[in-house]
């Protein structure tokens, strides 16, 4: 029987949810509002949420001072490239783990996840030196590889969870019908797991887009994405909050829009298998 919800209880729950959402969203709201302020009102004490002298100047200056389209394009290439490459590697890996598990599969999965718990700075110097030797510093291909490797454990784990939900008999039927491993994955597994793959793709595009540590360390100008674009506005001469906010807003706007339109798919993907 469904639990009866009183209107009072519902109102309280709604209020609590909105409060939590507002607390989480507040820094982003502050940043967006600051981007429309002048530098003096941005640093005014006491801080003001709203100001009288709204301006678009910051955006104009940020646009003029830097090559936003190049950074934007780099972000697109890096986030999409690393995610698609990650999927190409992770789909067969997750297939093997879900459908032909060995004795050590669970340990392997846990080990992969544990690498995400390691502070990135721990491998900074070795990775930097490897990239330097291979001539991959400030190259898109190098960054795509690095970001792919960073997010691969998450991609494999997510796909593994989705694949486990697919009955093995259907893949066996495909095998009986003459599909080899490649065709089985392309014609049967992938279309069946498409909602899960789409969620994985979206989440990893967002993660790669927002990645700042490696993108700043491993790039200078040519392959720098929007995270490096933001960093370039924290000048040594002092902080220009309004311009920094404008640059940040411009950097997150594309991914915010993507997230807004795909939120249903994201939520569905992330809660997949949680309730049966």
């Amino acid at each position: 029987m469904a639990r009866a919800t009183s209107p009072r209880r519902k109102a309280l729950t709604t209020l609590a949810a909105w409060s939590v959402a507002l607390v989480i969203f507040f820094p982003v709201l502050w940043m967006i509002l600051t981007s429309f302020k002048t530098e003096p009102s941005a640093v005014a004490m006491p801080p003001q949420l709203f100001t009288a002298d709204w301006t678009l100047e910051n955006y104009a200056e940020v646009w003029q001072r830097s090559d936003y389209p190049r950074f934007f394009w780099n972000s697109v290439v890096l986030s999409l490239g690393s995610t698609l490459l990650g999927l190409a590697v992770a789909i067969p890996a997750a297939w093997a783990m879900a459908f032909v598990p060995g004795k050590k599969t669970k340990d392997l999965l846990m080990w992969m996840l544990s690498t995400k718990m390691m502070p990135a700075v721990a491998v900074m110097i070795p990775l930097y030196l490897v990239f330097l030797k291979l001539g991959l510093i400030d190259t898109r291909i190098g960054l795509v590889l690095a970001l792919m490797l960073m997010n691969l454990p998450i991609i494999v784990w997510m796909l593994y969870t989705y694949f486990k939900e697919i009955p093995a008999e259907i893949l066996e039927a495909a095998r009986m019908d003459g599909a080899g491993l490649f065709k089985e994955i392309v014609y049967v597994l992938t279309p069946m797991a498409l909602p899960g793959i789409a969620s994985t793709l979206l989440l990893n595009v967002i993660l790669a887009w927002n990645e700042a540590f490696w993108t700043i360390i491993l790039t200078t100008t040519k392959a720098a994405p929007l995270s490096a674009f933001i960093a370039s506005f924290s000048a040594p001469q002092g902080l220009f909050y309004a311009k920094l906010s404008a640059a940040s807003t411009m950097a997150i706007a594309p991914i915010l829009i993507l997230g807004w339109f795909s939120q249903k798919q994201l939520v569905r993907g992330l809660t997949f298998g949680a309730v049966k």
Partner: protein
Amino acid sequence: MGKITLKHVNKSFGDVAVIPDINLTIENGEFVVFVGPSGCGKSTLLRLIAGLEDVSAGRIEIDGTDATHLPPAKRGLAMVFQSYALYPHMSVRKNIAFPLKMAGMSEAEQEKKVQNAARILNLTNYLDRRPGQLSGGQRQRVAIGRAIVREPAAFLFDEPLSNLDAALRVSMRQEITELHQSLKTTMIYVTHDQVEAMTMADKIVVLNAGNIEQVGSPLELYHHPANVFVAGFIGSPKMNLIGGAEAAKHNAATIGVRPEHIDIGEGGPWTGTVGLSEHLGSDTFLKVEVDNIGTLNVRASGEVTLRHGDRITLAPQAGRLHRFGADGKALA
């Protein structure tokens, strides 16, 4: 062609030998049913033949060729699964055409074969639907259609009717039998339902704990069970198995008599009290508590009106008594 030979086939999972050692020949065009209780290894045996599991030892020959290590697709067999295993993202047409597409057949040829299979299986009006929009029986027909179009050397059925309701099971059973009669292709059918085995098979293979207990036609198994296990497994209601002093009178460790081979009337050797009586109209099933023996199942005609507590005398029909030795094997 579709002759399948198993030679000393063994399958172990770790230290557990699910199938210790099986030798079996399935002739071309035969309808063979593997039957046995849950966990007896019948599905594993089918999967070994299909190539979905690797044998631990032994040899599988299909039409005289060694197929032991061939991948499933290269064995020329088609399989129908218990859960139908249809591709949910494809239409019925694409499901049926899938093996043809994998074989690289032209689209025109695929369509011709799909139409033909759909006509045989009454699926013509459903070709553009997805499996999710079909009933259980229709889904099973699609699975059979997908198997038919491949024109396999043999069909393998893994408990294909288990997910259907009782009425549909009977009609699908008949459809599969008719299909076998028209295609004349070898069929291997796994079930735990001995009624399916009896009604469909040319040859029944009774399995128990990974071993073949007996191979024979349904009536051979019914009339001449090789051992106590087969005697108890084949036939519905089950054969009455009696041990102790009553069996010793017949120089056996166990005697067996089928419920339909016990007559009710004066002068029989056994006297008992009717416990439960089930009136089905055509038949009456009685559970009789027989003095010094125990409970016996008796199948009487529908007209019998015995009730709980009635005292009756029973007599096994002459020549219908089965005798088994201490090792469980039938005595001559």
